């Protein structure tokens, strides 16, 4: 059985590198697919565009979604995910710099499963990623997707 995929939607290469580093440091060895904007993320999830050849049955175990993204932003990605039967139930964790209340409220309204602010302090960031990995990849049970 292949390892469960993590979809990381992140446009900042620094944040991407740090997130990958934090995952690695926490011994989370799952495959991480990185989408650098909302369009790429949607292409991956719905097997369109660059990901047209992808097996659509394989869905990520968790999506780490940034909000500020080029082209299609995080909230729009979330909205489209929740509007499609195939991705309606996917766990989505908003992982972003801000904790502006409007963002938090909109995210939950659109059906986010969790909202985590990326701490500036890397040690705290590591801790947050560790918790996320433990919870969403090990503890949490997803509905089986067909």
């Amino acid at each position, binding site marked *: 059985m292949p390892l469960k995929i993590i979809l990381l939607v992140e446009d900042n290469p620094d*944040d991407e590198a740090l997130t990958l580093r934090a995952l690695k440091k926490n011994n989370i060895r799952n495959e991480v697919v990185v989408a650098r904007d909302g369009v790429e993320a949607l292409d991956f999830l719905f097997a369109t565009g660059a990901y047209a050849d992808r097996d659509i049955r394989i869905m990520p175990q968790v999506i780490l979604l940034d909000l500020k993204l080029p082209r299609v932003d995080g909230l729009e990605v979330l909205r489209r995910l929740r509007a499609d039967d195939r991705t309606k139930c996917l766990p989505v964790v908003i992982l972003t710099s801000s904790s502006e209340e409007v963002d938090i409220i909109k995210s939950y309204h659109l059906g986010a499963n969790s909202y985590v602010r990326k701490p*500036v302090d890397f040690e705290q960031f590591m801790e947050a990623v560790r918790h996320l990995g433990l919870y969403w990849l090990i503890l949490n049970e997803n509905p089986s997707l067909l």
Partner: protein
Amino acid sequence: MKKRYGIHSLRFKLIAIYVVVQAMLLTGSIANRVIIVNDSLTKQIEVRIDGLKPLLNAALAPLVVQRDYAALQNILNEAVYVQGLKYIQIIDIHSKDMSWAGKIPDSFSEDQDVDEAQQDHIYDQEQPLTMANQLVGRVRFGISTHAIEQANIKALKQGAIFSLMIIVITVILLIIASGFLTRHLRSLAQGAQKIAEGDLDVIIISDAKDEVGDTARAFNTMVTSLKTAREEMRILNEQLEQRVIERTEQLVMVNRELEAFSYSVSHDLRAPLRGIDGFSQALLEDYDNTLDDSGKAMLNRVRAASQRMAQLINDLLNLSRVTRHEMRIEPVDLSLLAHSIAHDLQHAHPERQAVFSIMEGLSTHGDPRLLRIALENLFNNAWKFTSKYTHADIQLGMYHDSGEAIFFVRDNGAGFDMTYAGKLFSPFQRLHTATEFEGTGIGLATVQRIIHRHGGRIWVQAAIGQGASFYFTLPYMQYNPIGQ
């Protein structure tokens, strides 16, 4: 709609007064005329009688002496017929009736009409008949006053008709004149009514050269200046409204920009810091062997600096959030809030020994979230500045001064020099170095903003080494429990 005043109309009053006065005047003049006519007629009769007396004496005395009855009778008949006497009677010296003509009063004549006798007043006269200064008999005669009465009645009738005609003519003239007057007054009244209703397009057309005309012209002038004033006011109002709209638009725009700015700060300023901190940490971890202690120390300083920057950004965002936050006024139990904050502080630093003295039942009205932030900042401050003392004593209390509730948060910490107290509530102003007590200098600015948003005041009392007391009021909320 034309208003009907009936007997209250000016016109009616004018005419009524005129009629009464005229009637009084005319009545007086008629009475006067009747008296004059009466007097003059009476005098005429008396003059006639005086003229008649010698004639009667001359004509009758010889005949009485001669006792010529036939001649007497002839003369008497003639006299009654010609002189208009009612009766005439000759009596001799023995008071014996000698001869008479006409209707003798007190006679028993059957054909005397009672009504006629009553109506017909007789002016009776008796006169001696003399001859050579010797009384020979007497003559009695009566002159009818009928003529006088007739003349009086005629004068009265003429006077009444004349008066009536004068009254009728003048009433007609008055109606016409007062119609002219009241028509102008009425149009003035209607104009004023229209103005009262807000219609200023009223012009009263009056070519009268009198006071009414002046009033109408003054009225028109007033309406014109009123119109001008109203127009000026309207224009001013419009300009003001336009300005308000423009300002509001500007404000909305600035506000939106501010929102966008803080949103951007919130997102974009943190990410590079995370990079700086993250990669410094990565360096420390991955190049542990090649980095000497000095290099590691420098990297740690980089990390500390980026974290301080992150803290600054956080505090700044909180300060701006406090300003933008939409207030929701509810009853707030400050004592309960303080207990919860104290519990968190003690929980985070279990090694510290601190006494929290919190007055119970400190309830007020305000935004619970903002008031919590304010109390948190004040308690954090107190907690921070007592950190170098073995026994921290932090109080929350309230007292009344001139009927005003004044809350305070007091500590027995480091305190500060009151000379610099004025700077305390401005952002980024600190009275201690970062090595003494860490902080960004935004906490008290945030507290002040929250208190101000609640319509209150905040001030401080402190001395170096003797702790600090922060006082604040929340008056607006006490009087407007559900207002904002």
